[in-house]
């Protein structure tokens, strides 16, 4: 740990400071850049007809991406082992953010108390909190040198439980499930005992059953689940959404209707098509060729992330990368899966594709972490 004092991305005059940048994962960067560019284009196509200013969402999403890239560079620059050492601070900051958003300082949109209104932007503290959780679990695992006995397992679970509970209070079931996925994957790689993992799996199953049996689901959640289980019988909003989503994707067929030519997209039949249902735009306008390519690019990014995990210098780096991987894979599978009707509908954005500042920037930051770990695999 020689390099602890790189002060900025702009100046790499010191040899040992610039050295890691020679090992940066260009493939991963290229993949992310390709997806984000496609995302900006698709957001434009989906939102052109939404308001008077057809470039509004385009410009904002482009700006979010630029900010995200800056943040990514920043996160990559600071050695992840420094971040590890500051894990308690990151953790407290995340929790404070999640507590404050529940206070009158936060604002409520579509039934969830999940945003801070800052001028013309909304900050969603649960997005950076994902990164926070990844770093904290990694730090915790690394602190215990990969030996998670029962007591330490409980400690890790307690660590994750606080932000998860706060997010469920918003309520935002989707994001909470992302946390659960991150937790499960990182604990697995961090060295949790097989029987503890089995127990955790069992507890998860019991929790799912309990949620249903005890009626803990909100009405809109039941509606979404009903739409997922019985798309044709249900004329509720969610079933409508799901049907229109499937129509859009299937309407694209092999080569798509052409950019800006999708009728489902153009005529706005799929609600939330520039945010959670952005994949339908790709499916309809670019067809199997475009949506297959997008999935392939996602697979590339995930593969590079997994590879970074495997090559990481230490357990902390491995766990960080697997945390990011779990976040990406869960969001991709859940989001794309719900648009095609193989997963229930939840409000989870598609990484680098869905319109939205907090999620875009946080995901870039997560990739920054992976780059960070990867380029310091020798140091």
């Amino acid at each position, binding site marked *: 740990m020689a390099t602890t004092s790189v002060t900025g991305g702009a100046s790499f005059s010191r040899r040992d400071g610039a050295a890691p940048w020679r090992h940066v994962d260009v493939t991963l960067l290229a993949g992310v850049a390709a997806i984000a560019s496609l995302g900006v284009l698709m957001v434009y196509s989906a939102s052109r*007809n939404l308001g008077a200013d057809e470039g509004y969402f385009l410009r904002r999403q482009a700006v979010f991406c630029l900010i995200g890239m800056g943040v990514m560079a920043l996160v990559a620059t600071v050695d992840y082992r420094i971040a590890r050492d500051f894990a308690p601070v990151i953790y407290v900051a995340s929790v404070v953010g999640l507590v404050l958003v529940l206070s009158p300082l936060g604002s409520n949109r579509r039934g969830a108390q999940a945003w801070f209104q800052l001028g013309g932007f909304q900050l969603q503290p649960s997005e950076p909190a994902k990164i926070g959780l990844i770093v904290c679990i990694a730090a915790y695992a690394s602190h215990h040198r*990969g030996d998670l006995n029962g007591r330490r397992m409980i400690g890790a679970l307690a660590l994750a439980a606080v932000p998860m509970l706060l997010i469920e209070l918003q309520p935002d079931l989707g994001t909470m499930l992302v946390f659960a996925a991150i937790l499960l*994957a990182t604990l*697995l*790689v961090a*060295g949790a005992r097989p029987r503890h993992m089995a127990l955790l799996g069992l507890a998860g199953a019991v929790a799912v059953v309990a949620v249903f049996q005890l009626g803990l689901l909100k009405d809109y959640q039941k509606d979404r689940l009903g739409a997922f289980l019985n798309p044709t019988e249900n004329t509720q909003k969610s079933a409508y959404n799901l*049907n*229109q989503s*499937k*129509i*859009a*994707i*299937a*309407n*694209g*067929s*092999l080569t798509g209707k052409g950019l800006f030519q999708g*009728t*489902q997209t*153009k*005529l*706005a*039949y799929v*609600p939330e098509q520039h945010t959670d249902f952005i994949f339908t735009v790709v*499916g309809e306008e670019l*067809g*199997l060729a475009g*949506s*297959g390519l997008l*999935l392939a690019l*996602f*697979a590339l990014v*995930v593969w590079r992330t*997994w590879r970074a*995990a*495997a*090559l*990481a*210098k*230490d*357990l902390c*780096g*491995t766990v960080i990368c*697997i945390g990011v*991987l*779990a976040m990406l*894979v869960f969001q*991709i*599978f859940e989001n*794309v*899966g719900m648009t*095609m*009707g*193989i997963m229930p509908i939840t409000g989870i954005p598609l990484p680098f594709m869905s319109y939205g500042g907090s999620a875009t920037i946080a995901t870039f930051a997560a990739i920054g972490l992976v780059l960070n770990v990867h380029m310091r695999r020798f140091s």
Partner: protein
Amino acid sequence: MSSDNTRLRLSIVGIVVVSLFAALFARLWYLQVMDTGTFQALATQNRVRTVFEPAPRGRILDRQGRPLVENRGYQAVTVTRLDVKDKPEVVTRLAALLGLPRPELEKRIADPRYSPYKPVPVAEDVAEEVVVYLREHSTDFPGVEATAVAERTYPHGSLAAHVLGYVGEVNNEELDARKGGGYRLGDDIGKSGVERTFDLDLRGKAGTTRLEVDANGRVLLPALSSSPPVQGDDVQLTIDLDVQALAEDSLARGLEAARASHDRNTGKSFVAPAGSVVVLDPRDGSLLALASNPSYNPAEFVNGIRPEVYAILQDPVSRCPLCNRAIQGQYAPGSTFKLFTALAALRTGLIAPNTTFVDEGSYRIQNCRGEKCVFRNAGSQSYGRVNLPQALTVSSDAFFYNIGANLWFGGGPNRNAIQGAARDLGLGTRSGLDLGGEMRGRVPDPESRKKAHEDFPDKFPYGDWRAGDNVNLSIGQGDTAVTPLQLANAYAAFANGGSVLKPRVAARVLKPDGEPVREMVPESASKVVIDPVHRSAILQGLRSSIARPEGTGAGAFAGFPLDSFAVAGKTGTAQVVGKQDTAVFVAFAPADAPQYVVAVVMEESGFGGAVAAPVARRILDGLAGHPPAPVQLAAGMD
């Protein structure tokens, strides 16, 4: 760091990731390649709305091109109930615009005659300013529209109502029966008469506009495609407005006169509730008039009939005004049937035209052992020695009883010769008239009797055909039943020398500008060979029954210039169990070159010669160009 343990755990993560991605790819493949067709259709269904503008129906014209049914075009304001359900402010605004009190407008919107599939018209003949205002302020009036409406009008009221028929909203049964015929829920369809038979010609083609609609229901202009409505074709009838009016008027007067006269059998006046008239051209089967009384006004059905009006039409007290008795009423023909009996007797050689028989006023069946062996003439009058023309003239029952009995006792195929003659001239089968709902009548024979007995043993206590049945049949009593149209058409076949024609009311179909689309040609259903000697003997009898003082129709035709316009005819008086006599009369004229057949049937009205013949005479007066006289009941019988 990369211990073997971590490597294993990373592999587990890798396997999970690969399988999740594989699942996404598989699903994507299924949707975009395997199942794409279904969803593409759904996408089109999603975005394309087709708006239909109903086409004005074609007109219905009389024989001379005078309109019997037309359209009235006007601007109407319509309201779609669902759209204004939760928007009372729209109703308030519209009430102010139309200058109507709000409760009145609400009442009109709630009009039960309109189905939920149709916008409800709340104001007709709306001023142009109102239409323009509504179009310009459409956002203030969701569910309110100003549309051009073409509505059926009947310049002659209820005239020829049963021929014209009425129009109503298509129902589910009709939709099912016409799948693929382009009918949609809410469309108008001809429910009866010419409107029904020629619906495909009359209905025209609705205008369609294919609009692209976004998820919020906003229409994207310009329209994807649009075609204007095409007005339906006109149907020109063989019905002559003047003859039809004369027939209806004469029938109504006749029924009225019958109601004012005394029935000797019951001691009361006649009920005379209903009747019908057929006037047809025996040369080509075209109908000049088809009247059925009581009638109705088809205008009542425009925009849906009011329930209370419909209830009256359906009330048994009203005697079914919607029934077309001329083709649906089935009556015992009485002595008008003697034409067929005479033909059978001559054809089989049982008698010659001048064979005589002594009519003693009654007839006893030989070797008869049964409940009924003696059959009497009407009024038990005896006519002495008569041949066939004389028997027809005075309507001697005994003469024909004798034929009926002898044909039966003669055995062999001639046993059913009377039925054969009747069937040859079209009785017992539908004539094939181009109006729906025609009944087939009944020519009874041993077989039908057997079946009737098996099916209804109470009504038909014995299943075998006896001599008495043949005797009854010979004068058109018993189970014999004909429709007025069948009777007219059979006499037409006799009049024209043996062509049983397919009667029709439609002459041609025309484009709205008069260009012919298709012409209906006279069709002959069958041809009967009638020996000229036989025909002439029967014709002599039919002519004498009008012209000779002893003829049963002579009273009705007193003063009629038969020299210039000779009439041949036959009266009939049918007995109906539990009811007063049915008056029947059929005639054709001019007798040597027939152009008209007139059949009149009047329920519970008395003697054919006394009541039905005067009605026919008034019609023939008109056809011959004489000024119409009041209907005067004649003295006379049968």
